[in-house]
């Protein structure tokens, strides 16, 4: 694989769910997407338009009904185990294992990658502290607030040094000021390591702040627009950009 080759390549991907009653539901249809190495792509779109489903497909957790998906030149579903240690995910819901403490949850990825116990704890603690969770290392998920749980889930992802980062509304459950601080932590991590990163968000400011590119998805999951984000934009430019994005999303709604 050449450096110039896209890290993520989706071609005409379709995902149809079939319920037990045989009802078919198309969640993704005709999705084409390419992401280059080191790109930070923000993905926006209406609720239920298939953003999380797209992530599941990219992670190899679901098999597309048709179309082809390549990550780092490999098929994430067919070559499932090839992706060991290559993918890092912050899920939309925290998905903390209830029987593990914050620390044990944060280090689960390191356990799977067979790090030594000392390394596991050192790295996990470092991230828990960086995410402002000191004092809660031994708390079980039900003893934490929603935002704290989400941050443990972030620590779990940040502990790893994957090739590609996926973040599904990582900052959605936090108050504005915490969200901003953590976005900075995230941005620092991503830019420092030059990781390829896909980021789903409902917050267009967040998309502008972190992403260098913005992909707007329509329903069922396909690309409506794909644009560079303005850098160092003034308030007025930001507002204008936001209006444009919302217009595109709403235009799709009317047609659909």
């Amino acid at each position, binding site marked *: 694989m050449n450096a110039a080759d896209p890290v993520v390549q989706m071609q005409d991907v379709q995902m149809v769910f079939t319920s037990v009653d045989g009802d078919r539901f198309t969640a993704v249809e005709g999705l084409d997407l390419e992401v280059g190495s080191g790109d930070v792509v923000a993905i926006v779109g209406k609720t239920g338009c298939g953003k999380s489903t797209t992530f*599941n497909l990219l992670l190899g957790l679901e098999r597309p009904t048709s179309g082809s998906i390549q990550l780092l030149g490999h098929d994430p579903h067919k070559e499932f185990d090839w992706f060991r240690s290559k993918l890092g995910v912050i899920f939309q819901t925290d998905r903390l294992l209830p029987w593990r403490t914050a620390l044990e949850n944060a280090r689960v990825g390191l356990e799977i990658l067979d790090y030594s116990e000392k390394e596991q704890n050192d790295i996990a603690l470092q991230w828990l502290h960086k995410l402002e969770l000191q004092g809660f290392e031994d708390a079980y998920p039900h003893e934490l607030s929603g935002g704290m749980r989400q941050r443990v889930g972030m620590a779990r992802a940040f502990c790893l040094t994957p090739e590609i980062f996926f973040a599904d509304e990582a900052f959605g459950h936090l108050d504005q000021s915490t969200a901003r601080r953590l976005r900075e932590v995230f941005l620092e991590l991503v830019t420092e390591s030059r990781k390829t990163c896909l980021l789903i968000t409902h917050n267009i400011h967040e998309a502008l702040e972190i992403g260098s590119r913005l992909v707007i998805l329509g329903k069922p999951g396909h690309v409506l627009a794909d644009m560079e984000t303005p850098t160092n934009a003034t308030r007025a430019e930001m507002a204008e950009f936001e209006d444009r994005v919302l217009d595109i999303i709403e235009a799709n709604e009317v047609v659909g």
Partner: protein
Amino acid sequence: MESEATRSELSPARAQEAWHARLLSVLAARKEPIISFGVILAAWQVASFFLPPYLVPGVGAILAAFIEIVASLTLLGDVLTTMGRIFLGLVLAFITGTILGVFMGFTETVEKYTLPVLHFIMGIPALSWVVFAIIWFSHVETRIAFILLAGCLPNYALIIHDGIKSISKEYLDMLRALRPTRKQLFSKLILPGMIPAVLTSWKVNLGLAARVVIVAELVGATRGVGNKLLLAQELFEMPKAIAWTLVLVTFLLISQFVILFLEHKLLRWRPAKQGGMAT
């Protein structure tokens, strides 16, 4: 830990005082069950004044019979025999039931074939199994083991199956994104995820097994609580019949307590039950 350290520093007299205070507070916290049982005992005693002792023996007579059992090694042996049978039958049913439940949880084909059969078997009354066992087997212990297995295996399999099914796909996906080995997936998700179901299955089956084993022991067994109950009935010895029952219930409660203790240890991560409907 902390209270133990401070206690050892107290003088003996103070320590005893503190112990009494603790006992009182423990009793006070349990005052409702103490009152309920006290009322039952009192009512029983009053009834025994008016009814013949072979129907309603006095509390004292029952207590004497109870102490006779607990104090005598051979009689206690009967209780331990019964408990041993229950335990052995349950372990056997647990192992086979867990294997079946795990297979059902992971393989849809196995699930489709076995689930309806298990539900059907669950509908068969314990007494039917007793009758079948007498016809099919001549060896007493084989009969009892068979009856326990037939009664408890479906229960174990269904509860374990349910426990595995209830492990959220979200957790599975979270771990699968990390590409774990099969062994890692089992030890990090499936095993901890099914522990609550395992504990529930033991709680349910312990009670079931105790009821079933007594019936099984009524026929052909020369030892065990069921056999002793039968003897008491033949000789019309009501105090003994009650005392034997009490001994068995006591041992069962102790076993239940052990499970509750394990549950407390293993399920520390669960949110404490916040007062339910009854407040």
